[in-house]
């Protein structure tokens, strides 16, 4: 009884995927629009893209930049967020600056950064870094702020220094919230990457999308959407597995992914 | 007024084990009676109250109100929860007015009635405060006023004074008795405190733990109106308290869950 329930729960996202694709198929058949290929046609075009060596290399290079940008952002943002959560001064110092930066579209900085740094890896990675940082800082901050004061006190009573308390008590206690931020950040990294490629129009998945659009290769456009969508879903699912393993002790707050996009 | 007839409640706990929370409870409460339910934590007092309230359907057996089977909540039975459960988005007045408005009373009349009730529970001047701005005792008064406002025939009170300090608790007990002596509503009152049960009630229902059963029903034959200070010196009152506490002690010696 419960086993079957678990099986259905596992299969549900797959069923949802199939359902959405079926919906797409029906809609495209009904609309009969030249620029709206059916789901089957789009899926058929996927191997062609992944088989194209240049496109594949481009996409992999994008993913590498994404990984670097994400990694550096997490390494910088988590300590900053934790410090902000534990120290009123640090919070007062950074909060207004972050509030001003928050609504700035990070991918929109692409043209300016390109103006300064050219179109190399550094510019693209920097934009991803900026895109990921804020949510990770925000969640680490919230996580650290919510850590029970008594827990930190008892750490102090045991003779831990301030730095030790941050690493040994605050960080583990805030871990669930930090990981929620990282999960959001990961999806955002992918979004920033694709958006900046759409804006810069040099290489990568975003560029392939719009080149295909310009050339009227609609199958490729939709196939690329499937590829990018699959990347997002897989990254999120993979991270969710890691997260569930790392913070088994904490009660899950959302079992639906809460991401920025 | 209320008939509980061989009610049992089974809860499904993790995976597949069933937990028998209430076993074969039968109880009748007469109109205008003040009945307390007393028992150790987890014996199913709240569950029993929720069944009478119509919030929970019993696994077996039936509960009746005035001869009609209880199938859901209704304004004839007013709950007062231990957690207050005030609407945080409404002011004190808004909370108290909610019931009458829901019953279709005109806004002006509902407001006038509610203001009178708020005054009666001693919160005049706090009409426009929000629950978060009140102390625990004040919140409990608002919760009581909110329930009284829609004139339920039966009050279902679940450890309403459990979270309060001794002083506030005593004051609210006196207030509740005054209100009850005036209106003579039927009250089912769940509590942990033997003193409280004896002081307030006509009848104390003692429950035993796991599965919840009725152990004994004690009639509290003390004169009314009751004054706390007089009662504390009254040997009859003292005897009731001591007897009931002894019975629970015996229960403990029998071992937990026995």
């Amino acid at each position, binding site marked *: 009884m419960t086993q079957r329930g678990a099986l259905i729960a596992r299969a549900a*996202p797959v069923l949802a995927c199939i359902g959405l694709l079926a919906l797409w198929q029906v809609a495209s058949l009904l609309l009969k629009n030249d620029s709206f290929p059916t789901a089957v046609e789009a899926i058929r075009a996927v191997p062609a893209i992944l088989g194209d060596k240049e496109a594949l290399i481009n996409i992999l290079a994008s993913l590498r930049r994404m990984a670097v940008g994400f990694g550096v952002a997490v390494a910088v943002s988590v300590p900053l967020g934790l410090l902000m959560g534990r120290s*009123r001064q640090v919070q007062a110092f950074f909060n207004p600056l972050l509030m001003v930066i928050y609504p700035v579209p990070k991918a929109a*900085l692409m043209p300016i950064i390109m103006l300064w740094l050219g179109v190399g890896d550094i510019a693209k990675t920097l934009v991803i870094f900026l895109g990921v940082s804020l949510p990770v800082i925000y969640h680490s901050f919230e996580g650290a702020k919510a850590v029970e004061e008594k827990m930190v006190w008892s750490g102090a009573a045991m003779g831990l220094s301030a730095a030790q308390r941050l690493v040994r008590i605050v960080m583990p206690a805030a871990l669930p919230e930090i990981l929620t931020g990282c999960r959001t950040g990961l999806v955002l990294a992918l979004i920033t990457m694709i958006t900046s490629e759409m804006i810069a129009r040099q290489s990568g998945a975003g560029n392939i999308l719009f080149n295909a659009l310009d050339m009227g290769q609609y199958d490729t456009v939709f196939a690329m959407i499937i590829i990018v*969508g699959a990347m997002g879903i897989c990254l*999120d699912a993979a991270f969710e597995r890691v997260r569930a393993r790392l913070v088994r002790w904490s009660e899950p707050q959302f079992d639906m992914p809460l991401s920025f996009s | 007024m209320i008939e509980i007839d061989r009610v049992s409640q089974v809860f499904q706990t993790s995976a597949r084990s069933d937990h028998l929370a209430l076993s074969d409870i039968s109880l009748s409460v007469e109109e205008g009676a003040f009945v307390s339910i007393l028992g150790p934590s987890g014996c199913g007092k709240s569950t029993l109250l929720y069944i009478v309230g119509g919030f929970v359907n019993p696994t077996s057996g039936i509960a009746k109100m005035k001869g009609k089977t209880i199938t859901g909540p209704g304004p004839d039975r007013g709950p007062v929860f231990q957690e207050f459960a005030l609407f945080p988005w409404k002011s004190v007045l808004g909370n108290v007015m909610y019931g009458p408005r829901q019953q279709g009373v005109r806004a002006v009349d509902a407001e006038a009635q509610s203001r009178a009730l708020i005054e009666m529970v001693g919160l005049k001047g706090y009409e426009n405060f929000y629950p*978060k701005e009140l102390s625990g005792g004040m919140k409990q008064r608002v919760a009581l006023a909110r329930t009284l406002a*829609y004139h339920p025939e039966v009050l279902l009170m679940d450890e309403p004074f459990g979270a309060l300090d001794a002083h506030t608790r005593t004051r609210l007990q006196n207030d509740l008795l005054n209100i009850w002596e005036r209106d003579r509503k039927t009250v089912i009152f769940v509590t942990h405190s033997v003193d409280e049960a004896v002081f307030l009630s006509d009848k104390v229902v003692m429950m035993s733990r796991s599965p919840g059963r009725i152990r004994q029903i004690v009639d509290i034959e003390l004169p009314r109106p009751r004054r706390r200070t007089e009662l504390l010196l009254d040997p009859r009152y003292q005897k009731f308290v001591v007897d009931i506490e002894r019975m629970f002690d015996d229960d403990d010696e029998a071992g937990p869950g026995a």
Partner: protein
Amino acid sequence: MRPRILPTDVLLGTAPIALVLALWQGLVSFGFAPVTLLPPPGIVFGRLLQQLVTSTFQQEIVATLIRLFGGFLIAVVFGVGIGIAAAASPAINSVVRPIVRVLAPLPKVALYPALLLLLGFNHESKITLVAADALFPILLSTYFGASTVEQKLIWSAMAAGTPRREILFKVVLPAAMPSILTGCRIGLVISCIVVFLAEMITSTDGLGHVLVTAARTFQAVDMFVPLITISLLGLILNGLLQAVRSYLLRGFPEV
């Protein structure tokens, strides 16, 4: 009770902003960065003020705002509606949950080319993209808020004679309001970001388009102006939402 803002906090808070501006000015003044690449802050803000009073620039702002609000409002309506429905009905929940699982982590911007093909290059495609991006945070917070409403609140209302179908509007919705508004705040920031990006990728007007036009002609000053404008818009809208929030949530603890 909100913690009072201390004057020292204000001082501390303005320090890094001042520092950034000083650094910016310094980079130009001491010749580390050519003015063509990094115009000094004075010139940028002067240009901003100058632009703000021109009607062409105002029209760009209006175009952006229409798309922003259009998308955001659609997201609020659907997000709150679906979130509440999913919390209220197990049947709807079992359908919505897996679909959300799949769609929430999907990078919506990838759908933009498809939206362009289906809805054309006007407002519609951009509004839809904004709505798609702002929808999920609002939906998820609404669902979370509505599914964690204190049971006893619902019971209290039912005992007072509220019919089951009214419980949704009289108890669940107001009780979930803090959560819903948190979701709206996230959704609003996302709307600001997405509308700008969509306009940058393809548009003939709007703030994002202003930036792209400036970038094509390497006018660094004009690239900063729309960026600062959207950031200011974001701050103002956030402030407005905050005001709505403190009004609606005046009864709730710690707004």
